[in-house]
């Protein structure tokens, strides 16, 4: 549904988005991750046709956004960053305006408004003026505007920014529900959100795509992925390190915590340890040495870990 090919945007000498390519199909929810200023918003603005790209092509439902902007924009719903709204209108009036601009009129219009208000839990503020709304309601009004025409494609710039935890949860489940029949792109810098809602994630840093995969694939790239954390007592840290270090499958052992009588060690595998051989080997060592194992846990890898590893070196350099 969305195809982005070699997209580049330069503001003067500063390259905000640098040769970005990806695509999103129906039924996919793409999480767009990156530190502040990485080029997430700029990319989304180019996809939605707000700013023209310096180079590259964006195709939405087969329509080139630069050449056929109206056709492309018709297929998309867009929630810009910080959800801008006309503050002098009521929620209902604003949604009605957005529906009309999109060519939805008369009976269809009131149906579309009702549907959007229902989906975004706006019933209680329906006739309220936008400038009297709390941040959460404003955000949901912006969200309602984006789905007023039940678009095939949804582009959202930080849709959960500024919401309280319950509202975040609501918006995430809304995105998940809609993601079954639509193509969705949303940006965020909340990593748990990516795990909770996305089918795929792209990490962008300094205008470049630095990682692209399912949340599980990304997590597997984490240093921690497939390592084992072992808590044992009845021994000493040095001995734990030596004994576990002698396991063939392990590449490295670190002591995470050494508070007698408990020692917490992390054992990293030499290669991806699919069968759990390293785990069995750790158990063997523990029983041979009469350690009392209170906990052994296989790490899945963490999103924040991979995010830091990929994006931190640049930030530190600055």
């Amino acid at each position: 549904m969305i195809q982005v090919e070699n997209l580049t945007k330069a503001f003067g000498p500063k390259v905000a988005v640098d040769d970005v390519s990806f695509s999103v199909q129906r039924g996919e929810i793409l999480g767009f991750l990156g530190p502040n200023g990485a080029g997430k918003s700029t990319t989304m603005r180019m996809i939605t046709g707000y700013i023209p790209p310096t180079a590259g092509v964006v195709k939405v439902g087969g329509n080139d956004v630069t050449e056929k902007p109206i056709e492309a924009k018709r297929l998309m719903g867009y929630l810009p960053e910080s959800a801008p709204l006309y503050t002098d209108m009521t929620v209902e009036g604003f949604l009605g305006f957005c529906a009309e601009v999109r060519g939805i009129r008369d009976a269809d219009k009131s149906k579309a408004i009702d549907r959007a208000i229902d989906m975004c839990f706006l019933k209680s503020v329906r006739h309220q003026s936008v400038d009297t709304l709390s941040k959460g309601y404003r955000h949901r009004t912006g969200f309602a505007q984006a789905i007023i025409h039940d678009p095939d494609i949804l582009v959202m710039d930080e849709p959960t920014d500024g919401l309280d935890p319950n509202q975040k949860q609501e918006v995430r489940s809304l995105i998940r529900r809609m993601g079954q029949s639509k193509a969705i792109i949303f940006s965020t810098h909340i990593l748990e959100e990516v795990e909770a809602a996305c089918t795929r994630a792209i990490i962008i840093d300094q205008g470049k795509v630095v990682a692209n995969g399912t949340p599980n694939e990304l997590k597997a790239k984490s240093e921690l992925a497939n390592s084992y954390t072992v808590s044992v007592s009845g021994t000493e840290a040095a001995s734990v390190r030596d004994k576990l270090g002698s396991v063939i499958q392990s590449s490295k052992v670190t002591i995470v915590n050494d508070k007698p009588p408990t020692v917490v060690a992390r054992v990293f595998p030499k290669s991806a340890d699919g069968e759990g051989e390293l785990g069995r080997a750790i158990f063997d060592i523990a029983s041979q040495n009469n350690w009392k194992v209170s906990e052994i846990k296989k790490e899945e890898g963490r999103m924040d870990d991979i995010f830091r590893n990929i994006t931190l070196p640049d930030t530190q350099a600055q």
Partner: protein
Amino acid sequence: MKSIWTITKRELAGYFNSPVAYVFLVIFLLMTGAFTFLIGQFMDRNQATLQAFFMWHPWIYLFLVPAVGMRLWSEERRLGTMELLLTMPISLWHCIIGKFLASWLFLTLALVMTFPIWITVNYLGDPDNTVIVASYIGSFFLAGAYLSITSMTSAFTRNQVISFILSVVICLFLVLCGWPPVTDVVEPLAPRWIVEFVAASSVMTNVEQFNNGQIDSRAVIYFLSVIGFPLFATSVIIRGLRA
């Protein structure tokens, strides 16, 4: 066409949703009345014309039209709603024209509300109503010309005050460059054709035609270009903002 009307409706409602519209209408009517009767000495003239009424319009509009139009685009920029509007499936031109029409309609409403003076002059005497109609048309075009300039200056900046001041300055130039007290001073200093050319591009010279009861095609073309060019500039500025 429908999308233009949707934009226009929203903008117009925006005026009436706030006190701005009512404050403006009251001030406009008070000012036109005060200028006509107190300074223009409508009664003492003892003439069945509305000259004392229309002669002040270029000056009254100079401040009131920029006040009406200053928010057109600067407000969109300040609120960030421009991003919303321009990612809707409508062309930039529809937005520009829709917004412009809304303000122009509002100013037309203000102008129409001056009808009691027309009734007054018809009650007191026997005026040439064709001249009055022509003058009203001239005033309508004049408001459009100022407004179009304000549309352009409001696209420049997210600050309404700057938009207002820029617009007043540009409109003032268009007034002064054809106003006899100024042209008389400049005349000996520059070649005659330059003075004539500049004077011909003044709103004063052109609105005068209408006030004399003539609807001259040249004056009509003049006003249409003074409306058209700044609207075109508005689109260039907005496109430039996004590039």
